[in-house]
């Protein structure tokens, strides 16, 4: 076997490999903590302000999910940014045509590898535990829901209330009563998305999908189509309204429903 030639460093006239001076834990900690702090504050404060005001439990869960994942992201970003910044600061940082001397190969200590795996696993577990805890089981809406049959057409939503003759493009819902949307489409796939309720379901032709939600705030709720459905997808929206049960019964009656049926659907006592 031919003898080894001079090492690349010796040929280039440089010294043997040295450990870079960068990598101060203090810098990493400071920078990382700063990023994590800013991120955490943002993650706790911003979702409540930016997301639409929740009008159901599901929407409240969404706000909290943003906060939880946001804080985890802030911590992760802090760790990464801190380590990255520290790697650049205070050491052998050279630009120009000749490289700095080689840094020695670092054996991946088992403890470091384990720490990395544990940290990432902790992130996974945290997100999964949170995600499972807010996962709503089927049939969560409880007994005797208000049933609304939602049909998506290109490019309008129609709403029918079984047991009444109401079948039009306006949607009114009683406060505090569980609602069961039975959603379908007559042409292409749409997305039925009452934004303030924080949940949606696909409107698929030939299939009925179910969305259960309980409105817990009075006021308007914008319903937007969330699945690209052609030319006027952007315009396929409804301004739904959550009203008190008696106002809801009143509205049903105004649409030609017998009073007793209207009061029953609205959940009012006889």
């Amino acid at each position: 076997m031919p003898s080894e030639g001079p090492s690349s460093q010796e040929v280039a006239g440089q010294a043997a490999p040295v450990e870079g001076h960068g990598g101060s834990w203090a810098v990493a900690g400071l920078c990382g903590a700063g990023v994590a702090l800013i991120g955490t504050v943002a993650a706790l404060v911003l979702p409540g302000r930016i997301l639409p005001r929740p009008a159901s439990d599901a929407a409240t869960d969404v706000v909290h999910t943003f906060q939880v994942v946001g804080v985890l992201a802030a911590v992760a970003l802090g760790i990464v940014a801190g380590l990255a910044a520290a790697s650049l600061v205070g050491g052998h940082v050279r630009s120009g045509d000749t490289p700095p001397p080689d840094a020695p190969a670092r054996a991946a200590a088992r403890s470091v590898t384990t720490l990395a795996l544990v940290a990432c696993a902790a992130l996974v577990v945290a997100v999964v535990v949170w995600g499972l805890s807010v996962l709503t089981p089927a049939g969560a809406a409880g007994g005797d829901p208000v049933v609304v049959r939602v049909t998506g057409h290109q490019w309008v939503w129609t709403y029918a209330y079984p047991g009444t003759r109401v079948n039009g493009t306006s949607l009114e819902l009683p406060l505090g009563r569980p609602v069961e949307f039975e959603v379908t489409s007559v042409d292409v796939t749409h997305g039925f998305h009452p934004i303030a309720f924080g949940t949606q379901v696909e409107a698929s032709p030939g299939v009925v999908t179910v969305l259960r939600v309980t409105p817990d705030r009075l006021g308007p709720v914008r319903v937007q189509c969330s699945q690209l459905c052609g030319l006027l997808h952007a315009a396929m929206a409804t301004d739904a309204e959550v009203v008190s049960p008696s106002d809801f019964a009143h509205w049903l009656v105004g649409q030609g429903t017998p009073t007793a049926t209207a009061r029953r659907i609205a959940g009012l006592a006889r």
Partner: protein
Amino acid sequence: MTGPTTSSVPRPFRSRTLRERQGVAAGLVVGVLTAAVAWAASHVLFEVGNWGTDRVTAVTMVAWFVGFNAGVGTWNPPLEWLLGSTPGPDVVTLEVGVGRGRYRYLRFCTDHKVVGMQYLGLAVVLLGVGGVGAVLIRTQLLSPHSTFLGPTAYGDVVTLHGLCMVIGVLLLLIGPFASYVLPLILGARTVALPRLNAMGVWIMASAAACLVSTVVIGGADVGWTTYAPLADQASPAMTALALALVGLVACVVISGINTVATVVTLRARGMSARRMPVMAWGAFIAAGLAVATMAGLLLVMTLVLADRTMGTTFFVAPQGGSGELYEIAFWTMGQPLLYVLLIPPMAAVLEMAGSFARRPVFNARLVVWCFVAIAGISLLTLGHHLYTTGLSPALSGSSLVLTELFALPVGVVVLCVLGTVWRGSIWARLPLYFVYLFLWDIVIGGLSGALLGIPTADRDLHGGMVVTAHLHYMMVGVVLVGAAGGLVYWFPKFTGRMFEERTGRVGFWLIAVGIQVTFLAQFWAGAQGMPRRVAWYEPAFRTANQVSTVGAYVLTLGWVVLLWAGVWSARHGRPAPADPWRAESLEWRVPSPPPLRNFPVGPVLAPVDEDTGVDGGTSRLGVPESAAAATAPERGGPV
């Protein structure tokens, strides 16, 4: 194809053989002629019946595909095989491009380096078209009810933008990385299937022409995922689009098979799996994943084509069809595709981190296992695209767990990049800038993906701008940034010149800032409730959109500056030595750019006497300068 034998010096046009005349020009002529004849004939045959326009479109596009590739010479290898002839030395010489000069880039060329650059050219064109689309989209969204583009045009642009970008990035990885650099890294003098490799790029070129032609023949406003039943309804351009995607599948599978075979069979002697660089592992795993999963796209496209041209009812609900079938089948391909796109840039970032921190990749063996884990998990996570289809809680819960599992291998890879640069000897050259931007973006992109993986969140955010922001952070901020860094890193090898870094840094900072502004503003708009793929929106989202558009203009400017720096440097940059980065993998042991067969003789790695002390180290091979001189003399500059 009888006549005078081919010569290594181009003859005057009249005396050339048929084979010598094949090339892009011949391809365009034959392709357009065949398509025109087919169009005329199919008009007569089909126009009167049902599905007539779609059939005419389909026949025309197939004729274009067959004719163009006949003119280029793509069908020569299979025809020769069927006719029982073996290409002689003159044909091999012609095909490998000897004596053709620059024109070999416009021909069927079996030199894997030429094919790599051909893919790069195609990628730049597609990314450019996609980029123009992005600027148009963001300009439309400057005001809530803009009349800049009509709704049809907007939908068409959204679709074309998405497809051109996804395909463009894919070609960027297939060409410069898998075709050009990979064999050099492995110490190979060629790829395993050079003729198939060349066929792949020309099939893709004809498919790309088909894709871009949809702008002219009507456009399809279906989004890049082209969901059915909307895809059944769209204009005949959708038929052309579906055929273009079939061509894409052929190209990706061809390229994937070639890459896998090259890695398995043509490594330098002595390069065991342990000593194979991380970049090679990344390309190998991504290629294998692509071959395994592209069938999903082929299936849905044939179903859509059957519905559109033959009246089948796969996606027609009144006759038993199901839109959910499309979604499930599409995402069996779509989800792994995202990781086919992610893994090679990750590998490139690790290589760059090692070179510019002057040490081996931290725990390379663990990194490779993470790549394998990412590829494996990606096969199981299509469920998170289906949360809003009325999925049962059991399926939602299991999709949640599987999706969030990604954070483990991806997070470990990020920590290994950090472990490589930590207390390294930092050499702050331009590729390293991309490494650090990659790190920042992958945390934001990855954690927003973790958010969307939670069913409760996704049921609010599906179809909204938060999804758009997440996917762009990943595709632009991570994949494209990593790929761009890799291109700058291997630029001296491709062109023999150094990348002009001052201009490059300007481009880099514009891109870095542009990404954050554009897509953080989209997170904001999405959180407010703005849906995606909409031409108009509620006034409440105006500020977020305006900020995003400004960011998009900055980002676009950044890419243009970077591209311009690249083009300028390719012509006027400082001549580059074989090993400008004093790096240690084998591609730096050959001149820049490499000669035809890369290494004058197949390199052999001596056995490892002692452990380098790095656990599973594969990237640093410790090649002494004196042995490097045994390779062919390089151009200019010190060794």
